[in-house]
């Protein structure tokens, strides 16, 4: 059952305890939103700032929430947009909207064991912004290429290309010594 159906069914039973209700919303979605922010930003400090801003924005905009989507979907879309804005403005500040695929940093990984999720998290943080955003949306969040393209304002073919570049770059970063 979709969350929106639950919302619709129970909305009439709403109470006025707004803050505890919002805390419940936060507790339910904070991990997913923080993970998205962390992977977009590439570091914990910016991810935490983003998490706060996203929920503050959600709090301000809840009055405008329409029933066309589930609350979680609405919140996630809001989070993706905020994360995109953040990475783009950061890139603009650094005067580097996109980065060429230059030489990789030395691999963080040691040993010859299987690649772990932590290895991959670290490697994702080293990706250039453009392909990291496409990769996170497609391979981590499960968006289709056309959705990634729409969110990033690029062509579907460019999304495919960015995701592929990201995987190739990750392969190099994760190579065994």
């Amino acid at each position: 059952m979709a969350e929106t159906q639950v919302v619709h069914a129970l909305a009439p039973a709403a109470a006025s305890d707004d803050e505890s209700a919002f805390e419940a919303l936060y507790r339910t979605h904070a991990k997913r939103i923080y993970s998205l922010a962390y992977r977009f930003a590439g570091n914990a400090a910016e991810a935490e700032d983003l998490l706060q801003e996203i929920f503050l924005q959600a709090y301000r905009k809840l009055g405008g929430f329409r029933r066309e989507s589930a609350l979680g979907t609405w919140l996630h879309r809001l989070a993706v947009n905020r994360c995109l804005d953040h990475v783009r403005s950061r890139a603009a500040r650094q005067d580097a909207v996109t980065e060429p695929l230059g030489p990789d940093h030395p691999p963080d990984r040691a040993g010859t064991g299987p690649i772990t999720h932590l290895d991959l998290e670290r490697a994702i943080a080293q990706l250039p912004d453009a392909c990291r955003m496409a990769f996170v949306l497609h391979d981590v969040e499960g968006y289709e290429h056309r959705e990634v393209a729409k969110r990033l304002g690029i062509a579907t073919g460019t999304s495919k290309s960015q995701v592929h570049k990201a995987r190739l770059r990750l392969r190099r970063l994760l190579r065994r010594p």
Partner: protein
Amino acid sequence: MSRNYHAPASGPACERHADALAALVDDTLDPRDRGPLDEHLAGCAACRDLLADLREIRSLAATLEPIEPPARAWHDVRRRIAAEDQPLGPRVEWLGWWSFGRAAVAAAAAMAAAILVIGPAYLALPPSSDTPDHASRAAAAALEAIEGSHAAAIREVEQRIGTGVPIPAPARDVLTRNLALVDDAIAESRSAVEADPRAAIARERLQAGLARKLTLLRTMAALELEGG
């Protein structure tokens, strides 16, 4: 990861099949292109390794765990919300789902508390001049008048629950918890009515409790139905 990383897939034939290989990793390869790529892969260890590595990366990425935010993050969000100078407005309506559990618990608890307080007060009233038989018949009549209007509807909905798509755990738990609280409140109200069939507040509480139970049951049935 690749056994042949140092011999990357970069020959002319590999380059010709690069797009097809990327599409294969994405599961979007046109079946018509699969044959030529398979032929190439059969003779190219570097591309086979590349394919295996890219698929491994994609698979790992899809199973990354959510990352726990710092505990202080909520306190900071709360502090910033508190600093907001905005009326709550329509937010409340849309947070109905989130506040529902607390609201229902509070309502049921209030109902139960009221009955716990009011019930003994009725019992402390001067004894009725009615005979025990008459009092008992009056109580039965009062209960029948109140419960009769809801009993059939509750039974009918109860029979439907459990026949649809199971309700997800969070919603089911809230509903079940609230249903138990409302049942407790109903039992208390019923006792109060039995003790004094003339007690208008007790009868109203029982009526409200039964209506609340029916609403909860109908909600459960509707959620099961919508789940399909």
